[in-house]
């Protein structure tokens, strides 16, 4: 049994193991990055660190979604060691590239047994299905567990 941090995209509920979440903040000013892939919403300044904000809905292929009035950002823990930005980018090659997801609402912390996770149901889109590691029935409804590595780095 591990604890999951849950959040909503529309009325769909998703979860991530709580240890992979660094913090959750209200959405703030996001600097868009021209020419970036569609799922990259932009960059924010989190107390002096630059965090790349990914649009989870785009990543999951969820269509017809408007940004909620009050969005939140789920900032992920750790982050991978970034590729060298080149020496001209300053000697911070070892700085972690921090990332976060833009979500609509935040749910409670839920305890669930990942062993009891079932594969995603058939009515989930193929793209989305690939990025989920399973679904769990909880007291609060169906919780879709995200495959974090796949979401961040897969295609």
């Amino acid at each position, binding site marked *: 049994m591990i604890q999951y941090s849950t959040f909503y995209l529309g009325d769909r509920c998703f979860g991530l193991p709580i240890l992979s979440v660094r913090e959750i903040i209200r959405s703030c000013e996001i600097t868009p990055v021209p020419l970036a892939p569609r799922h990259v919403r932009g960059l924010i300044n989190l107390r002096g660190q630059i965090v790349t904000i990914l649009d989870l809905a785009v990543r999951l292929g969820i269509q017809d979604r408007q940004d909620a009035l009050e969005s939140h950002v789920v900032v992920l823990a750790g982050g991978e060691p970034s590729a060298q930005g080149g020496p*001209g980018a300053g000697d911070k090659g070892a700085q972690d590239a921090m990332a976060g997801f833009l979500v609509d609402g935040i749910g409670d912390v839920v305890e669930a047994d990942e062993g009891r996770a079932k594969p995603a149901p058939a009515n989930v889109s193929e793209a989305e299905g690939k990025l989920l590691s399973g679904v769990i029935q909880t007291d609060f409804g169906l919780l879709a567990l995200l495959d974090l590595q796949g979401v961040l780095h897969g295609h």
Partner: protein
Amino acid sequence: MGSLADDNLISEFVTESREHLGSIEPDLLAMEQEGKKTSQEVINRVFRAIHSIKGGAGFFAFEAVKSLSHIMESVLMQVRDRTLEVTPDLMDPLFAGLDRLRAMVDDIGASDGVSFQGEADRLKALLAGSGAAVGGQVKAHAQGQPQARQFALDADAVRSILKRGMTLYHAKAYLHRDVDAHWDSPLAFLNNALSVGQCLDAFLDLSAIGNLNDCLEQDLCVTVLIASVLELDLLAHAFKLPESQIEPMDMKALKGSLAPIEPLAPAGPEPGTTPTGQTVLPAPGDERAEANAGEGAHGKVAREAGADTLRVRLELLTKLMNLAGELVLGRNQLLRTMGPHAQDFPGLADILQNINQVTTELQEAVMQTRMQPIGTLFGRFPRIVRDMSKQLGKLIEVEVRGAEVELDKSIVELLSDPLTHIIRNCADHAIETPEERKRAGKNPTGRIVLNAYHEGGQVNIAVEDDGRGIDPGKVARKAIEKGVITAAQAEALSDRERVNLVFAPGFSMAEQVSDISGRGVGMDVVRTNVEKLGGTVNLDTQVGMGTTVQLRLPLTLAILPSMIVGLQGQRFAIPQVDVVELVWVRAEEVKTRVERVQGAEVLRLRDKLLPLVRLADVLEIGRGFTQGESGDLLPDRRETLVDRRSPAGAPSKPGVEERERADRRQSWRSDYHVVVLQLGSNLFGIIVDELHDFEEIVVKPVSRYLEGLSCFSGTTILGDGRVILILDSAGLAAQAKLQFSDLRTEERIRQEEEQRRLALKASHRHSVILFESGHGERFAVAQDKVLRLERIRASSIERMGDREYIEYRGDSLPLIRLDRHMAVSPLGAEADEFYLVIPYAEAALGGSPGGILISNIIDALDVEVELKPVEIQGPGLLGSAVLQGRMTLFLDPNVVAQAATGGKQP
């Protein structure tokens, strides 16, 4: 082995060994230069350095390093003791040994597996030549040792010690009790030991643990066999060991045991006897020199122990630098926020000022910690050039200047490859063979000068050679051959541009790919690497005379002075080093200054044509303009910059539209702000909406989720907390698919046009003769209409009726006074000298029609004037103009003369 095998200690050993190896190389080079005249000091230095490496290697049981350094040490010992002379043959094996040692130290863990047989054999051959054998062993035992331990000592070393009157001591140091208690590390202890004498062996004495006491203490013991001129008590003091732990060995016994064991040693137990049978007594000077050297070294250690340097991990310094950068940003934010309110709180202004000051100084100081003198880089090159010149059969001398110029450590490291490539190129291609040089009248020894200096806020590094220079023709041909450009394109290039072709990817001047300068890796990689550091590379060359390669670099990486620009409400940073100038094209000027060449928009800037790109297009952000009065940002539907008349599908009502359009044209907000960027030797302009400040920003790398976006070279946080992207000019140019070659052609065409036009204009210049008539009135006549100028005396004027004549070349020449034919002043009657302007007349008219009387000739000039019509009437008056600040009447003298004489000849 307990604490001896500690990784930290080993890496300390590696670092120190590297330093020793680094110091040996220039000394070996000096030895090679000076040969027999090499000073004892240099030889001693090399010897001590190798000795230290050997000692440390023994300590950590790196057998291969120990063995190889031992052999080198033996050779050097012979040199030091004057039994071997410094000859060229001596140096190559030493260099080879040095290189092998370096390789071993670089991968110390694997060093035991490295073969050094070749180098060892060569070195041994040197020793064999001098009659001494390496590896001869002498047995000795320490007096008073309960276990009567036997050691195997090197015969040459023993001989050397005896010659210099040293005593061999057996010293025991307990790791915990003695070493840790008094020294920073075992290595420090060992180094100290090496500085007070010669260490013959050092090892962990496992046999000593047989003692019950030691077992209980669990303290390991290190034994050092050290030869020194110092007395026991002094030695104990130097080692910080109790005297009871140091035993002098039996020197007489040692002497005795030398003779029988040495196979090649001369018969006879005399110490210091050379194979030739001569007894070489240690020269008193030598002994003293060695003793002095020993003490000198001791003194040096003493100084070093108190020296003000500290080894710090690079990681820590980098962290410090990042933190300092963040602090700078925080300070900026603080000042921005609190600045306006400083007066509201008593004492706040002072506090803010203080924080400001301290932060600035802190940042500067931290930056300093990472500065390294470029000499560390330059230091490698003399050796590289020496090796190459031997290999290529050339004579090359290297001079290094400005080695103390400091750069950020990471820049120094990243410069290593490009500089090495440049130097190799120099030695390989630029410097000619001695014969070629002699033929060309040059000194057969070529010269390479490495020069580092500060200029214009940047660091300059110049590599200058006096070789054969770069031939633009050859380069162009090579480039065509390699398919870098076509013959037609090559035609259009200037010499300077042809020389710069060496920077093109895929170019290499090597006829065969020589091992020496690499597989045509080329100057394009050099340039790319230098540009990545925010620097530039330039070539200056003269055929037959030499070449200078010049690198310019920013002083530091992490903080970048940048220009902040605004586009569609977003902000971007452009590194100042990329910005050449800012151009403000006013709304009215746009039509005239912006043109289209080959379908792309260009700006005419003085004599250059700059390709223009709209940043909004490159970044695919919606194009917009600011509405004149309201200041609203509206989408821009114009297709081209100059198309201001038909915004397709404009909103709003017809009447309003008209007014809006007019307003827009005039409003200052429709001006275009162009930032001119440089990319190598090309320039281009990007159009932005607004220009903001210059700010110093801390560069952070581009997030890995944004990899592959070539337009951005990093990200940063502005003083107000906003995240913005840093633009990369190369990336922008690539994204905009800019073509520079077409523009070059266009520029050339225009230049030629201009030249033709000027030539044409030149032909409208008049050459005139300027003269004075009555009352200083001025006249000018075209020079080619004048046959002669003559000076006459008033007395020679003859009169007939109301006409005047003068005898001229056997004929009578009628004289003409201007005031008789036009409304000008008469000539002064008192003058007794006049000048004549005799017009050139067509031969058909037969001789000159006459001579015009004038009072003075002023000058002959080339003028370019536009003649204005004159009010007075008269024949031959062409017009007037202002010459030399005076109103001047232009005459056609022929017409005047014709009119005056009525065309009739007397």
